[in-house]
């Protein structure tokens, strides 16, 4: 630890030229992307999201043959999305957990603006990481798949995987903003998507297909039930984002 302390600057504000206005929305989005990747947990989730798909496909190839590219890409999109939920959660709830939200709102007091920037930032990150995951998974499938691999619907599967990456990251950000608690948000989301919704599917499959975002991603990637799948993903995005915005705008920063 350094113990040499220097004297204050000689005259107030003379040496520092600060921007006269608040940061523009693109600046804020870039800043939020940097924040998400500025610590090990954020980088670990990003790396997991990018690598889960190709590694999972490579492992699956040891036990199965791939005859159709779009099928596994849909599953990769769904799995990658579940990891990207966490990236979204830590971008918002992580700020409350570590109390850095105090500094964030001191510098940009317009909370809706901050949330919009976070939403856009995790959407871009989510889409990018999902694209890397889906693209590299497709390369693995091409390498290990059968000779006459069926490429039908691959384009839609890739677009779905990228869109779902953005959607799941935004859902995570909204849930994180609503709960302001990283463990609570992660536990609630994973319990709901991976615990409760599968049970609902057993009890009432018709209802479950209107609720499950992971299933919606897989189905959409394979070209089925397109309107319903998009509605399910959009519904989760809207509900999580609105809940996050309403609760964040009302919550005091203690």
């Amino acid at each position, binding site marked *: *630890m*350094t*113990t*040499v*302390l*220097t*004297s*204050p*600057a*000689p*005259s*107030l*504000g*003379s*040496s*520092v*030229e*600060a*921007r*006269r*206005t*608040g*940061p523009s929305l693109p*600046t*804020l989005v*870039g*800043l939020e992307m*940097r*924040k998400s990747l*500025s*610590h*090990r*947990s954020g980088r670990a989730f990003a790396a997991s999201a990018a690598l889960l798909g190709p590694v999972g496909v490579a492992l699956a190839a040891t036990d199965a043959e791939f005859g159709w590219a779009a099928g596994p890409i849909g599953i990769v999109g769904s799995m990658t999305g579940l990891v990207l939920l966490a990236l979204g959660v830590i971008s918002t709830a*992580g700020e409350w957990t*570590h*109390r*850095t939200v*105090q*500094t*964030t*709102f*001191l*510098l*940009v*007091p*317009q909370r809706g603006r901050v949330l919009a920037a976070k939403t856009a930032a995790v959407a871009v990150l989510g889409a990018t990481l999902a694209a890397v995951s889906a693209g590299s998974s497709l390369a693995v499938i091409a390498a290990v798949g059968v000779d006459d691999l069926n490429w039908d619907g691959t384009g839609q599967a890739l677009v779905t995987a990228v869109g779902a990456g953005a959607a799941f990251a935004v859902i995570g950000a909204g849930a994180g903003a609503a709960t302001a608690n990283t463990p609570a948000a992660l536990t609630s989301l994973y319990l709901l998507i991976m615990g409760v919704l599968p049970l609902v599917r057993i009890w009432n499959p018709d209802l479950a297909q209107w609720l499950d975002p992971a299933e919606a991603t897989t189905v959409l990637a394979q070209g089925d039930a397109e309107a319903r799948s998009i509605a399910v993903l959009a519904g989760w995005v809207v509900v999580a984002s609105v809940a996050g915005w309403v609760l964040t705008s009302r919550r*005091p*920063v*203690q």
Partner: protein
Amino acid sequence: MITVSGLTKRYGDRTVVDDVSFTLEPGTVTGFLGPNGAGKTTTMRMMTGLVPASAGSATVDGRPYGELPNPGAVVGTLLDASAVHPGRTGRTHLRLLAAALGVPAERAEEVLAQVGLADAARRRVGGYSLGMRQRLGIAGALLADPPVLVFDEPVNGLDPEGIRWMRDLLRGHAARGGTVLLSSHLLGEVEHTVDRLLVIGGGRVVADGSVASLLGPDGAVVRAGDTAALRAALEAAGFHVEPGDDGALVVPGARPGDIGAVAAAGGHVLLDLRPVQRGLEDLFFQLTWPEGTLS
């Protein structure tokens, strides 16, 4: 100039800040004093928009904090030194703040050197001591060299050298025309740093004035060779005299010169003569604790 007017915060039936009003002028360091739970931090959070006020207002140059175009460039705030992501390095933390403020990234290096953390810049904040986190928080507040500084308990965890540096920093800031609001429960530290005291107790401002006016002379203590004779002479001169410790006499409201004149006129031998100044600590407890609660 910062103007706080009728600021009030209620949680249900409980009022934690009650009609607090004050102004902070450029060129002054104001000490915001009060025991734990008195309402200091809540007042500061309302001033900066982090906690919504139940009533009243706070403005910086006539505008609420939230309506300042780039508030961090106007008010440098340190409210909670632990409010830093432990996984980021000190340099990364400051560079992110610099980007939000719109100051050059190199400014992070300057303030790191200014607060004495240049060698720790690449270490994760999770490994910082409390004192280092305080200095990192101060570095963040200084990034844009803002005209107003609002610090909540900034000397917590600082070593004596750091406390002295902090005092010089705040005094220097005020000397350059800046405005400083400094809360602390370390009364001795505040006494040597501030021009003005704002004492809060039970959510209300109970004293507001210059250090000199609040801590003015309160009398004199005298010790004489013949205590009884001097006491008689002082009472004959119209002074109220109280017995002190070890045979000393306490004369409330008297200046040492007054007592010296009586002693000289009567030929009394004085062994000790000094003014009595009410300590900040005495004032603090007298103003902020209900009578009888201290025993």
